[in-house]
């Protein structure tokens, strides 16, 4: 029982990060119908910069802010300089370019920082509080929950309560009609990529301290888990991404805890296969509503 409780909290904590990362994938998917395979590499790149700033200034939080703001910038630049030039007659083109970006970013990071793991410190203790002899959550886990909750809340407010959010949704639904109504669709796309990349960078800063540390490929496994989470949720649905993230987090935690860490990646793939076979549109798909 103790073990189950611990694994549940651990799974929810990891799941929260997957949820944030999956949310970033959904943001770009909804706006462009592209799965941004480069999102993991982009997050690592900003994390490297963030930790470099932390090392140079001695302030973790300054580095944290630089990483997240760097994500905002990197996302906007990626859309303006790379994605905008891609031929949009097929969505596959954008996906292939994103895969190419992964190689470029990982290659450049390897040249600058080297291909070995570097420590990624956590801002809070990762030692779990024990209540009645049961290990529950660490301060860092609480920080993860708080940060992800804040991001989700901000995105909900942005998309449902603000005019910019309304214009972003309209652009995603029907770009040509939106243009006729005076919406700057290109600007909304840039903003979407910037926000998604910033959320991805945040997720990177939350997950890297719990992994082996900084490495050009450090987010590859996180990407696979988060992509699974997004697909489980239906790729189109923000709620689905969050739910999918938590499901994948719990699954990974239970499987690692009870069956061993080596089985965990297989469990994620199995989940992906089961969901795609049973509900190809994902658990929370709104694709039927979009088709109208």
């Amino acid at each position: 029982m103790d073990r189950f409780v611990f694994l549940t909290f651990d799974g929810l904590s990891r799941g929260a990060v997957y949820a944030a990362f999956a949310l970033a994938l959904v943001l770009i998917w909804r706006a462009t119908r592209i799965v941004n395979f480069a999102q993991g590499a982009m997050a690592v790149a900003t994390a490297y910069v963030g930790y470099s700033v932390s090392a140079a200034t001695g302030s973790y939080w300054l580095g944290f802010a630089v990483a997240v703001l760097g994500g905002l910038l990197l996302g906007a630049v990626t859309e303006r300089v790379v994605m905008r030039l891609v031929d949009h007659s097929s969505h596959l083109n954008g996906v292939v370019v994103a895969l190419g970006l992964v190689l470029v970013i990982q290659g450049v990071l390897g040249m600058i920082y080297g291909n070995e793991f570097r420590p990624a410190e956590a801002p809070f203790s990762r030692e779990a509080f024990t209540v009645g002899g049961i290990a529950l959550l660490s301060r860092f886990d609480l920080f993860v929950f708080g940060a992800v909750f804040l991001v989700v809340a901000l995105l909900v407010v942005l998309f449902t309560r603000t005019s910019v959010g309304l214009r972003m949704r309209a652009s995603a639904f029907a770009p040509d009609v939106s243009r006729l109504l005076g919406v700057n669709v290109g600007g909304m796309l840039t903003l979407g990529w910037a926000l998604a990349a910033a959320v991805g960078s945040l997720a990177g800063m939350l997950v890297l301290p719990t992994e082996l540390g900084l490495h050009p490929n450090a987010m590859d496994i996180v990407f696979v888990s988060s992509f699974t989470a997004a697909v489980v949720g239906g790729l189109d649905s923000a709620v689905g991404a969050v739910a999918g993230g938590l499901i994948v987090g719990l699954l990974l935690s239970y499987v690692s805890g009870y069956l061993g860490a080596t089985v965990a990646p297989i469990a994620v793939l199995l989940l992906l296969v089961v969901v795609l076979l049973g509900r190809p549109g994902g658990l929370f798909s709104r694709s039927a509503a979009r088709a109208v």
Partner: protein
Amino acid sequence: MTRPAPATDPDSDGLSLHRIGVRFGGLVALDDVSLRVPPGRTVGVIGPNGAGKTTLFNVVCGFVTPTTGTITLDGRALRPRPHRLARLGIARTLQGVGLFGGLTVLENVMVGAEHAGRRPESAWEALERCGVTPQAHALPGGLPYAVRKRVALARALVAQPRLLLLDEPAGGLGADEIAELGELITGLPCAVLLVEHHMDLVMAVCDEILVLDFGKPVAHGTPAEIRTDQAVVDAYLGAAA
């Protein structure tokens, strides 16, 4: 609803198309078409299917770049770009309605209002004017076609345009609905450029009418003149009768 001054400004001469030609490869979609839509007036464009009516709209909206000819707005050369239209005070409805399926009726109209930084109240005013206030919080997908067309009209009107482009607004509507639509169009304070098949509506609401056939202007005049024009009767009305 308060109206901006330009609609009645005597110095402004509205939208002018001068000798517009459009070719798609070997196909001549528009050939030497000239048209003026003065402020506050309603101008209709009619013609059989494939006559170039929608192409004419697409030229004004910037979706199609004319091969020849010029467009002016208030005497100034206009190079239309879709996203700049709203800023120029031009709004358009689409043949296929073109509502955002995942946004509520109110949100759909709000997107049209956002550009000009208008208050949410103006969205309600537009809904009210088009008689779709009760459906404000519904998703458009579940609404009857006639209601969706009204929502699309509300979305075009919310920015308080000085020129409204209506692309077959009567398409798919019943006789009563068309009569109501006619009253609504007649009551609009802005200039209207109307592309429509439904002759009764066109004759009822338009101050002047341009008739196109295979991209060429066949006749141009008041509804009374068009009704008796032999070329029009041959090309269009005669064929329809």
